[in-house]
């Protein structure tokens, strides 16, 4: 079981005199759990998500982001050595974090022209698996592996290069299955990544990507914004499936109770001024929906 642990996390915008945004965030997400992260605009929710994933626009000034793994987290056949069970994510590149099972669902996913969904996702999946192998490899074995990497396996005139761990045919089948589950039209597979997608299609696509990449922990930033009710249900079904079928832990950032009716959270947190001000069960989200954030603010200032 994987555990994402944020402790005393402080972060600012990565420039001289950059604005301080996170002011001591403490949060723990286990795989298989669903957490909702709520709070007023500007309280630091999205920044928390981006710092977890390693966005270069933010600089961590204090605190830690740790990922704790257990034997079996990457399947029975994947051995995780004793000394490679806790990772300091802040020392890793975004793609290394992805390889360890961190996924960020973007509020505004990028549009990449000319790159088909199929090509992108298969490349990403293979890159992730390969990087994971490298991260968990014996340090001695590393040099040898690099040697092998040099050069083309065959001449470009003679045929394809190494296909990677998941081949084209196998991947297409996987993609098709996952798209059916999410009720996505199969023609999306040949469309360019997010290019010309509607807001709703982009969000659906984020969940699809999580389903393919099978993360241990998925941070979903306002996955519910801009969705109509039908698509909200599709997306919710997809998120529940992540947890139920893959055991993914979900940290869901949202402004609205609405999605929580379909994706019931185990824990709800309220963020205020760069920290977690209040945590509770699903009833907390309902109270926020009815009463807004003022009472949280008052409570925080009273205790202060």
């Amino acid at each position, binding site marked *: 079981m994987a555990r994402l642990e944020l402790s005393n996390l402080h972060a600012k915008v990565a420039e001289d005199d950059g604005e301080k945004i996170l002011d001591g965030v403490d949060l723990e997400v286990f795989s298989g759990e669903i957490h909702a992260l709520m709070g007023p605009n500007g309280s630091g929710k999205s920044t928390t998500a981006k710092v977890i994933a390693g966005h270069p626009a933010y600089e961590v000034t204090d605190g830690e982001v740790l990922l704790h793994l257990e034997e079996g987290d990457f399947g029975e056949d994947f051995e995780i050595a004793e000394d490679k069970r806790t990772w300091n994510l802040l020392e890793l590149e975004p793609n290394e974090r992805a390889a360890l099972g961190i996924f960020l669902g973007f509020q505004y996913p990028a549009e990449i022209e000319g790159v088909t969904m199929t090509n992108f996702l298969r490349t990403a999946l293979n890159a992730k698996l390969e990087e994971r192998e490298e991260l968990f490899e014996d340090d001695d074995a590393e040099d040898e592996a690099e040697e092998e990497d040099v050069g083309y396996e065959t*001449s470009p005139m003679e045929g394809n290069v190494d296909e990677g761990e998941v081949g084209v045919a196998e991947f297409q089948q996987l993609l098709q299955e996952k798209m059916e589950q999410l009720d996505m039209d199969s023609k999306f597979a040949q469309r360019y990544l997010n290019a010309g997608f509607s807001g709703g299609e982009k969000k659906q696509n984020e969940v699809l990507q999580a389903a393919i990449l099978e993360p241990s922990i998925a941070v979903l930033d306002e996955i519910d914004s801009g969705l109509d009710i039908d698509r909200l249900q599709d997306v919710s079904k997809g998120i529940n499936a992540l947890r139920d079928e893959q055991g993914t832990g979900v940290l869901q950032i949202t402004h609205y109770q609405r999605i929580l009716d379909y994706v019931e959270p185990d824990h709800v947190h309220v963020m205020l001024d760069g920290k977690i001000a209040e945590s509770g069960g699903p009833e907390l989200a309902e109270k926020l929906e009815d009463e807004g954030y003022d009472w949280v603010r008052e409570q925080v200032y009273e205790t202060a």
Partner: protein
Amino acid sequence: MSSDQDHLKQTDTEKRFEFKKEESSAFKAEKGLTEETIRVISEDKDEPQWMLDRRLRALKQFHEMPMPDDWPGAPDLSEVDVDEIVPYIRPDVETRGGVDDWNDLPDEIKDTFDKLGIPEAEKNALSGVGAQYESEVVYQNMQERWEEKGVIFCDMDKAVREHPEILKEYFMTKAVPPSDNKFAALHGAIWSGGSFVYVPEDTTVDMPVQAYFRMNSDGMGQFEHTLIIAEENSEVHYIEGCSAPKYSEFNLHSGGVEVFVKENAHVQYSTVQNWSKNTYNLNTKRAIAEENATMEWVSGSMGSKATMLYPSTILKGRGATDNHITIAFAGEGQNIDTGAKVYHNAPDTKSTIESKSISKDGGRTNYRGLVHISDGAENSSTSVECDALMFDNESTSDTMPYMEIQESKVDVAHEATVGKIGDEDVFYLQSRGLDDDDAKQMIVAGFIEPITEELPIEYAVELNRLIELEMEGSLG
């Protein structure tokens, strides 16, 4: 439309596209390149008198013309030393082009060969070290099939000997006369090697004609001339390319390409070239398209220190069509000045130009294009799209899409984008597991996808691979 047109008419394109005719003394004093040199070349090739005469005339024009050094943003050509040229074009001189031993090649070039997975035998041939790569054998069988149909495909030296009537009519007379520009004149004087393709009426050559990896040791790779003639209702796809960098100690490549597309004929000319980074790559390529003919240019320009290349098409007959697809990549210290020229000289003619360029680590790419629509070329249409992608703030890209529109009943569309690779896009891909380099490569591959999908698959794969290598900074 009319006000746009006035504006376009004022654009001073002449200056940028035609070399000044007045005399310059800069090259008069050339010691190396003399009539004597040209006579030796011609004699060695056993050429007829008429070809020698043309060479000598071109040489004279070369000496009279100025360097094209006054174009805005164009590459600096002051390091091109024509005096050095003689040993590389005169077969009787001991110092030759290329190097004598594989081990003498610069490491970066050797690395590239290795990374491209090119076998040892080809490496030697490509680098000019060994004997000519036996590509002749590969298309020998094909040649027999074509010969039955009257198709000719041979090297230019052979064509001069065996098809003088055709060559006298077409060789540097109508499409690329030596007077076109200084380097066309130089080319006319010292050209060597290249391909001749002749497709008779009503004939479709169903496989691409490939001039691939064809180099030999007498400077063939550097001043090659290609002449393609497609008679009425014929069709041919000519591909020329080499993914490995061509290396020579002498740093000038000046090729010439002439294409004649007769009524209802269709010619596609595709090339992927990768020059070593000491090379000045200055070419003149031109096609003439008759009634309802179609000419297509597909070019990938990689490598070189500086490239100046603007394939042009003269749409001479009613209903003729031109398509241009170009892609250029400039890394550190490179200035890649490419584009397209189209002259609409008849009604109902159509052209589309798509250009993509990528610059990185301070490299510079320019799109320099001209679309000319003559008075009377009514119902003509043109569409120009040029996109530039830059990796960093040190790299530059300029777009100079000149238009001269003299006819009012025309349809003109133009679109240009210049952008930097997006940090958010890179982060998005990274968050999915791609490392920084792979993320950027994927964005670039997507950027040029509209072009690579037009290429035969093996060239598309190669072009992508070359760009990957360039981006890793590991190409020589």
